[in-house]
């Protein structure tokens, strides 16, 4: 099961963070507008979990390259690292709109 876990962890973290941030976005937009240092509050609150999700993916990927945590050599190591890269790229790409777009229009 550890091998399966290593393969699935990064895409799972992406899916959870993607869904959670989409849900948070819905909740924040329902609570009404506000501003913090000239930025809409919703945007400030949304960017924090995006950064956290990216940090989690980077740490996971780093661990997958450490001898202590990595899978035995061969297919499982390759697939788990590919999963790690998938998680990181998917997190950056799909959550990038939080940084680039306004929150609730």
């Amino acid at each position, binding site marked *: 099961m550890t091998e399966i876990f290593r393969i699935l962890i990064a*895409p799972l973290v992406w899916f959870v963070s993607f869904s959670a941030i*989409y849900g948070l976005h819905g909740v924040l937009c329902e609570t009404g507008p506000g501003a913090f240092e000239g930025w809409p509050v919703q945007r400030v609150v949304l960017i924090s979990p995006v950064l956290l999700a990216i940090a989690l993916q980077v740490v996971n990927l780093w661990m997958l390259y450490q001898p202590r945590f990595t899978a035995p050599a061969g297919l499982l190591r390759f*697939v788990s690292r590919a999963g790690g890269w998938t998680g990181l790229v*998917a997190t950056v790409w799909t959550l990038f709109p939080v940084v680039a777009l306004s929150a609730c229009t």
Partner: protein
Amino acid sequence: MRALERHRKLSAIWASETGFRGWFSTVNHNDLGRMFLFTAFLFFIIGGLLAMLIRVQLATPHSAFAGPEIYNQIFTMHGTVMMFLFAIPTFEGLAIYLLPKLLGTRDLAFPRLTAYGFWCYAFGGTMLIVAMVFGIAPDGGWFMYPPLSSAIHSPGINADFWLIGITFVEISAIAAAVEITVSVLKYRAPGMSLEKMPIFAWYALVTALMILTGFPPLILGSVLLELERAFGLPFFQADLGGDSLLWQHLFWLFGHPEVYIIFLPAAGVISTVLPVMCRTTLLGYGWIVSAALALAFLSFGLWVHHMFTTGIPHLGLAFFSAASTLVAVPTGVQIFAWIGTMWKGRPELHLPMLHILGFFVTFVIGGLTGVMVAVVPFDWQAHDTAFITAHLHYVLFGGFVFPIFAGIYYWLPHFTGRRQFFRLGELAFALVFSGFHITFLAMHWAGLLGQRRRISAYAPEDGWTTINLISSVGSFILAIGIAMILIDVLLHVFTARRSRRNPWNASTLEWAMITPAPAYTFASLPQVSSRDPLAREPELATTLARGEGFLGTPRDGLRETLAVDSASGRPEMHVLYPANTRLPIIMSAVTGLFFLSLLLKFYWIVPLALAGVIVLAWKWVRSLGLRDDPAMQPVGHDLNLPSSATVERAPGWWGSVFLLTANGTFFAALLFGFAFLWTVAPGWPPPVWFTPSVAELALGVAGAVIAPLAMRRAIRRNRAGDAPLFSVLIALSGSAVLGIACAALMLRAPAPTEHAYGSTLLVLGGYGLFHAIIAALMGGFLARQIRCGYTSAKRRAAFPIVALWVKYTSITGAIILLAAHLSGMLS
């Protein structure tokens, strides 16, 4: 023992009853795989005939062929039949038939569950077709959007047939998914590590996991919509705190992964067949496995791209547009790996290869139009036009039907033991390919000119007449091609000459046996040391027939196999399968009675049917008990293994883990629905909040904490040889107390027909109560097993299974009570 004598003995042990009676009692994967595929293709023919009716209707303007009411039923049933009764069951049938052979084992993990799943599918599908014959078929589109499908706008029984029939059929999908997951992870030939697993098994594993997490949101949506229609609980009624958008979220949480659930098994067929047709090995095995996994995950982040026109904020659109474009990357990785495989090999244009080439052309076009509709401004223009219908047919026909035809022609000699005789298949392929592209290229065009989906008529001045006529002519060419394929297959089955074993010179294990496959599959189980075992050992089939593998000596009329460690493939336990039984068909009939009584509003039958299911389930598991401690079992090659009844993680434990994964997704979708309605739906806050009770909350949470702790103690005491009965009874009582707290929540919930808040609390409480009853029943069963001497310190497999269910019940029950009482306190 000689090979022939071994064959006779094993056949006597594993064979189904002779004649048609065998259909009803078989639990053998060979029979059930064939039955699944046969039934799925019957439904395919029905779905195809409905498609022809659609094209007849649209061939001319102002067509009077069918009125709007009938036409609505036709297109709804076409989509429903193809998606739920053909595509998914075809995957199930293929996987059920092939997986044990590819994995080097004798059957799937839970043979009776396979049979139960088949009968649920057959009965549920028949229910829908009978409705169509009587003119009361569903008519709200295959996605059944409320408010159109609500009782106000769709009175009558049509929509109920869809909601209840599809839920019944989905039991089959969940059963097959549990079966496939456990089989791939645990039931493999000794030595077959995950690295050496055939590529189709990877795809089957990923698809099964997707079914377990993708189908529950739709089951939940169907339950909620049926509750609204039958009892007036307003989950999707905006004026009473509901929201029809909740249905769209739940439906597409299932619906988009569904596309990949259909595509991935077909990709597994291509990855298996293509290297054989190209006389080489698969290029980029690791890349393909990684791409399939990535595709599976990313497909769960796309569901809102079906809802781009519902008015969601731009940020939401951007999230899902980005995810929709990203999903093209792993798809592209697979396509390039297949092209690379062809490049490095020597492609031979046999019939399966023609269909694979058909797949390439068609699926790539479908994928590219998919990227077009992932771009929001284009989607706003094309949404709900014939362009989308054309796109989805390119994806599904290209991504599923062509590969499945390739698979049928590839494995037909395995099914029949014969080789292709007539050359009808090549002509049939040419007709299917050209007919398909004429039909659906034209449909893209009609869509871009503004033709809406699902319209029953159009005017000559719309300018779509010629295009629709071309499309209809193309569809008839396509239908003739498919009819010729069916004739070709029948001719093959009944008239073709005997084939030699392994006619394609393939390297996978399914060809290491006589064909058609014997009931026992392998006379002895192989030791696998390579991903291409037959390439490494061309004489493997003979070696296995001589009994030189594992379990080569039939014993005491027992159906034996091995289970292995999921990663390394090291033999782990000795497993005994159940014999033929009619229990699965009876249980699915009683399950069907439950659904039918709900459908026909004979509510007095519902508790009787439920009691029947409980009694049969009890009988089902009772037969698994052993009176004496089993010894270590010799399995050949000087290896002795423990019985599966004596291990902590028996097959039943693994099955429970994956069933609870599906159940957990259902629960998460229910919580999502609650949060969605609370935060997004109009008509909130509700007029009356739930009155919290600290006593009820404390009692329920206490029960939730005590039950798993007591089960843990029971496991420890049993392992130490002490009496575990008292601890099991405490656990049972804890679950009962939790159930009482959930029942109290249901009774005290604000009027459920007046606001979605009360309805949601009622459903949450019902979910908690239902699981508390299951946990209590399991605890009661375990207590009985202990009292009757069916457990011991060694025979301990049942304890962790019950503990798992009790733990799940406690966690979900506590969350339900907290969600309900805290919502009341916060108000």
